[in-house]
């Protein structure tokens, strides 16, 4: 894809907007004929050398033109496609009118993290998957860019500086402990605090934000946005205690019995990296994506001059996996100076769970994709450092339980890949610490916490949500679960 600079996109949108406004009321046909607005972005060659945001965000004119593509469908299938059921046509209508304040207010009725979700939601499989415009144009990629519009109004509000604090009811004197500070916990903290309860967030790391901070890189989600969400919580009177590992610093039972917390929310995420259990996986130069990304994002190892935390310097990197985590690791490795980054994925391109935009960006930046390929073993040199990786090629067979065609190894297709670093990004299991230290808390066989439809666990007053319940999922699902649990908690505390 050729790169169109921001100024050019802006000028084109200005002209389009004038034309549309001059033309008067739009018919559905006119709307679907409006070209989809391209997301302005940093040039691929430039961005390989920096950590700044890749997608720059729509200009106001682009946002209005894009908003005018929406048909305002009566049945609005997009709403059902959004896990938290944002009233999409209504917020988009406001943007089309140029009423950005109105637009963001609609979104905030249901979502607390629009600047985040607008950037990281897998829109093409959620709200945009079912959009009528995409259907009419027979291409889901041509659906109304709902996520980009959401991001636009959220950014607009932040840039105005005056994001209003939500109203907080009079103090109830009840205390709530929220464990973890990812999207599920941020949502619960805000919703429970609004009901007038005292809230303390306990976070194991030295900085709050969960995966939004230590996992998703700056070039996709600026840390300043996460920081602002946390600052808002603080301004609402939520106490945030970092460096506090629940289960070790204090157990859940003690929080409730000794420290007087009336209810607890567990939002500890899916933080246990899976490895492949192959030969050579403990060689020097093999990392979990969690470690690699945490070093770079949270510990800021990319800032070589200032950070004390080192990061492995690599020439040729192999990243194993096909999800967002794999894309983030691959693109981070490029930015840290790797000459070649190979992404090795067992299935084919269409089965990759990563967001389409991230795959595109990775490709533009020069990540090399090896589909239907899987490693067999990693080989080391005399210092036990990674020297190469042996792989096997696959072909697609019959669909498996997940409905995806099962990859079958091709006998004798082994080949060697010359790499010095291997980053394993094949997923996370749930961290067992809370389960191990909380007697009576029911877990399923995969180690996830079992909850009822309201988010309640097997323990009285203890709720859970997000990745610790769902297994590794998405930001918006974690947020949705948080919403639900918070409502149940508020109801429980009012009894």
């Amino acid at each position, binding site marked *: 894809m050729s790169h169109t600079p921001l100024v050019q996109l802006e000028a084109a949108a200005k002209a389009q907007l004038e034309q549309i406004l001059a033309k008067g009321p739009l018919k559905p046909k006119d709307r679907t004929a409006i070209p989809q607005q391209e997301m302005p972005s940093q040039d691929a060659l430039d961005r390989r050398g920096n950590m700044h945001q890749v997608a720059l965000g729509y200009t106001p004119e682009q946002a209005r033109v894009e908003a005018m593509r929406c048909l305002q469908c009566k049945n609005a299938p997009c709403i059902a496609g959004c896990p938290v059921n944002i009233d999409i046509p209504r917020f988009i209508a406001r943007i089309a009118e140029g009423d950005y304040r109105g637009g963001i207010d609609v979104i905030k009725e249901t979502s607390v993290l629009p600047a985040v979700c607008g950037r990281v939601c897998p829109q093409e499989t959620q709200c945009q998957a079912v959009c009528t415009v995409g259907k009419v144009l027979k291409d889901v990629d041509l659906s109304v860019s709902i996520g980009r519009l959401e991001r636009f109004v959220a950014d607009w509000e932040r840039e105005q500086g005056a994001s209003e604090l939500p109203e907080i009811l009079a103090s109830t004197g009840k205390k709530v402990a929220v464990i973890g500070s990812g999207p599920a916990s941020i949502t619960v903290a805000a919703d429970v605090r609004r009901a007038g309860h005292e809230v303390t967030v306990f976070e*194991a*790391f*030295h900085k709050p934000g969960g995966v939004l901070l230590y996992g998703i890189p700056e070039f996709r989600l600026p840390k300043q946005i996460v*920081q*602002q969400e946390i*600052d808002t919580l*603080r*301004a609402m*009177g939520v*106490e*945030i*205690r*970092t*460096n*506090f*590992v629940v289960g*070790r*610093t*204090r157990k859940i039972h003690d929080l409730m019995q000794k420290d007087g917390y009336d209810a607890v929310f567990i939002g500890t995420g899916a*933080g*246990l*990296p899976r*490895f492949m*259990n192959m030969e050579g*996986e*403990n*060689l*020097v*130069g093999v*990392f*979990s994506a*969690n*470690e690699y990304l*945490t*070093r770079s994002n949270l*510990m*800021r190892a990319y*800032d070589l001059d*200032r*950070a*004390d*935390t*080192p990061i*492995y*310097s690599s020439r040729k990197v192999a990243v194993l996996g096909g999800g967002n985590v794999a894309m983030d690791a691959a693109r981070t490795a490029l930015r840290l100076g790797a000459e070649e980054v190979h992404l090795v994925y067992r299935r084919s391109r269409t089965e990759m769970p990563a967001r389409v935009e991230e795959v595109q960006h990775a490709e533009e930046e020069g990540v090399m994709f090896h589909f239907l390929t899987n490693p067999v073993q990693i080989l080391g040199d005399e*210092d*036990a*450092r990674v020297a190469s990786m042996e792989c096997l090629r696959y072909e697609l067979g019959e669909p498996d339980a997940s409905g995806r065609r099962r990859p079958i190894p091709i006998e004798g297709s082994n080949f060697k890949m010359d790499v010095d670093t291997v980053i394993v990004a094949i997923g996370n299991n749930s*961290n*067992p*610490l809370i389960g191990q230290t909380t007697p009576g808390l029911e877990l399923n066989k995969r180690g996830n916490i079992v909850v009822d439809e309201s988010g309640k666990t097997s323990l009285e007053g203890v709720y859970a949500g997000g990745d610790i319940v769902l297994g590794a999922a998405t930001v918006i699902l974690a947020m949705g679960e948080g919403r639900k649990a918070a409502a149940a908690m508020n109801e429980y505390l009012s009894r």
Partner: protein
Amino acid sequence: MAYVLPRSYPLREITALIRHSGFFFFVLMNKIVRKRQLSDAVFRMEIEAPLIAEERKPGQFIILQVEHDFGERIPLTIADADLQAGTISLIFQTVGATTKKLAALNEGDFIADLVGPLGLPTHLEKVGTVVCVGGGIGVAPLHPIVQGLKEAGNKVIVIMGARNKDLVILEDEMRALADEIILCSDDGSVGRKALVTEPLKELCESAEKPDLVVAVGPPIMMKFCALTTKPYEVHTIVSLNTIMVDGTGMCGGCRVTVGGETKFVCVDGPEFDGHLVDFDNMMKRLASYKDIEHKASHTCKTEELLKRGGKS
């Protein structure tokens, strides 16, 4: 940028402060109440951390950071705790950038971030006679273990090794606890001129063959201790000091091979069966960032010291 505020700072005012400037961060800080230098490169600090003092058990550690934004997270064993005072003791050797920055702090200063207690506690029970081997700085993590083993009713013989007389630490504390102390040094300037494995072997061969051996020290020492006890089939526990990031099982950076399986030192350990640990792989992994760290910490003298101390 982190904002240094003492623990007693009224929370309401902190919140107000944050409302004024979106950038400031409130972090609970850990005050250094006492600092002593035990030897050329070894320091002891008592730090205010009441919750950790209350919860910690022998064998557990903390992770700290001297600087909030760009600092490195490093693990240190909780050498002792004072419940009444609400403090924990850390004993550390200056080997690189972070331990040097830590050593530069003084009484009254705050440590930016400190989290714990982490890791599984030592499994303490009465087994009979236990030989505890501490090498170099490893004597510090060994101290609470000896304490616990004594409390459980064991006879404890401590073998302490150091490169020379000036590098011996915690001798008085150990003498007060242990039933017997065997001191060794590389150069014979104190105690026996021997490696710790020598008396260990003798004990294994003696009438009073130990029921358990606990070895804590440089990886190379633990490796040879395990090799020494193996022929005598004496169960041997070692405490591993791998590189760590989070310390909660999230990153896998601390992984080691134990009995052919991958284990995470921070949550499955730090103590493991020494006869099953792949020490060679562990030592190679410890050297992952050697080239980079040499740049970060310009004086390599203490590092050399540690390495040579490893042979004690």
